[in-house]
Structure formats: C-alpha cells, structure tokens
C-alpha cells in the first residue's frame, strides 16, 4: 500500500495536474485514497474547482457586469494628446 501513499504537497500537485492534462491510473488511485483520509486535501480540491469556475466565468466577459469599474480621466487626456 505504501507506494500508493501521497503527501499533501504532492496531492495538491495532482489536483492541478488532473485539471490540466489528466492523471494516470496509478495517480487516480493515489489521489482518491489520499482524499478519503485527508479532509484538508479534499477541501483543497473543491476550492481549486471553485477558483477555476470563477476564472472561467470571468475570463471571456466583455460586458461590464461583475468587473469593478474604475474611472481614469488622466488616462483619457493622456491618450487624446497622443492621437
């Protein structure tokens, strides 16, 4: 069994690798065993997915909804002077 044991550090790596390129069978087993024993890493995976969802939702936004708006009048004048 020992060869299937992961550290938490390695587990957080595999969580990201899983999203990125997928895992080997051995890595899948390692990850699921570790998560069953370690609540912190199970929670880490949930939160990692939540951050992914957040990023995906906002990356392609072109409307202003949800993006904090800043006013920059100096920039307007600066650009106009260069046109």
């Amino acid at each position, binding site marked *: 069994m020992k060869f299937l044991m992961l*550290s*938490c*550090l*390695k587990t*957080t*790596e595999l*969580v*990201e*690798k899983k*999203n*990125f*390129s997928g895992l080997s069978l051995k890595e899948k087993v390692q990850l699921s065993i570790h998560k069953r024993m370690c609540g*912190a*890493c199970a*929670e*880490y995976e*949930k*939160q*990692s997915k*939540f*951050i992914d*969802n*957040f*990023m*995906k*939702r*906002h*990356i392609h936004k*072109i409307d*202003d*909804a*949800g*993006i*904090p*708006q*800043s*006013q*920059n009048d100096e*920039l*307007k004048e*600066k*650009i*106009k002077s*260069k*046109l």
Partner: protein
Amino acid sequence: MPNTVDESNINDTIKSWVQTYTDSLYSFALYKTSSKEIAEDLVQETFLAALQSFNNYEGRSNPKTWLIAILRNKINDYHRINFKNPTLMDSSIYDAFFNENGVWNKGQFPSKWQDSTEHLLDNPDFIKVFQDCMQDLPPNWISAIQLRYLHEKKGEIICQELNISPTNYWKIIQRAKLLLRKCIELGWFIK
C-alpha cells in the same frame, strides 16, 4: 483635399471613443493584468492601433466590441511575453504551507468555505476580494493563470507555444492556487 478631411474625421471619432470607452477598457485591462501601469499602457496602445487600422472597422460592429477585441489581443501578447521571464520555479513558497514531510503546516490547511456556492461568482464584493488577491501574486504567475483560461485550447498546446514543460506549467498553477486560495480564505471566508 478629401483625404485630410477623412483623417481629421477619423481622429475626432477616435477621440470621442476615448472619452466614452476608456473607463470600460481600462477596468477590463486592470482586471486581466492586475497592474495599473500595464493596463494604462495597453489601453493607450489599443486606441493607437484602432486609429491605424480604422479602415478595417467599417462600422460593422459596436465600437466597444471592436476595441475590446483589439485590447484582448494586446493582453494576450502581454501575458505571453511576461510569462517568459525567469524565476518561475522558486519552491520556497512550499515552506509556508507544508512541513518537510509534505504535510499541511498547522494553521495552513484549507478550512471549509461555508458559502462557496454559485451565487458568489457574481457577487461584486467577492469579485473585489478575488481581484485584490490576484494582484498580490507575482506578475508572471498572473500571466500563467490568465493564459490558462484565455485559451480554449488544451494545456499541451499552450505549453508548446510558451516553450515550457507541462509539469512546470501546472506546478506554477499549483503554487499560484495555493497563494490565491489562502488569500481568498483570509479575505472572505474567515472574518
């Protein structure tokens, strides 16, 4: 001299766009780069590019849509160039989170996020916390994260384009996530 008339018309049009759309474009660029200086530069370049390629515009789309498309390319280019900077692989960050056996340090393991549900994704206060946390990351890590989501492409293709091994790429994402996760937890979930 019809040409000069055209040119001054174009110039006036772009100036009126600067007045109308700068705030939106700047906010968008700030959101995507997490840097005020870079956001300002990219918005300025966007308008200069719009002036030069005005003939391609032809009024086919909403000006803002066209400007955002130009800006988006500029942001993408910025992240590609920025990403190539060295010092991506500093591993000292692990020491803050894990002990020598790779186990979470006391007080570092992820606590439960009580209301990490869908509704948070569009909550302006939460978005502000998230944006502030992004700004705290090293600039080339921000680029790594942004590139990850800017492209619909598979990860391996991004790695080929950036000339980086897949292992290094997702390890950067992992490190950035560790910091980002912690920052969001402190800024929002533990009060």
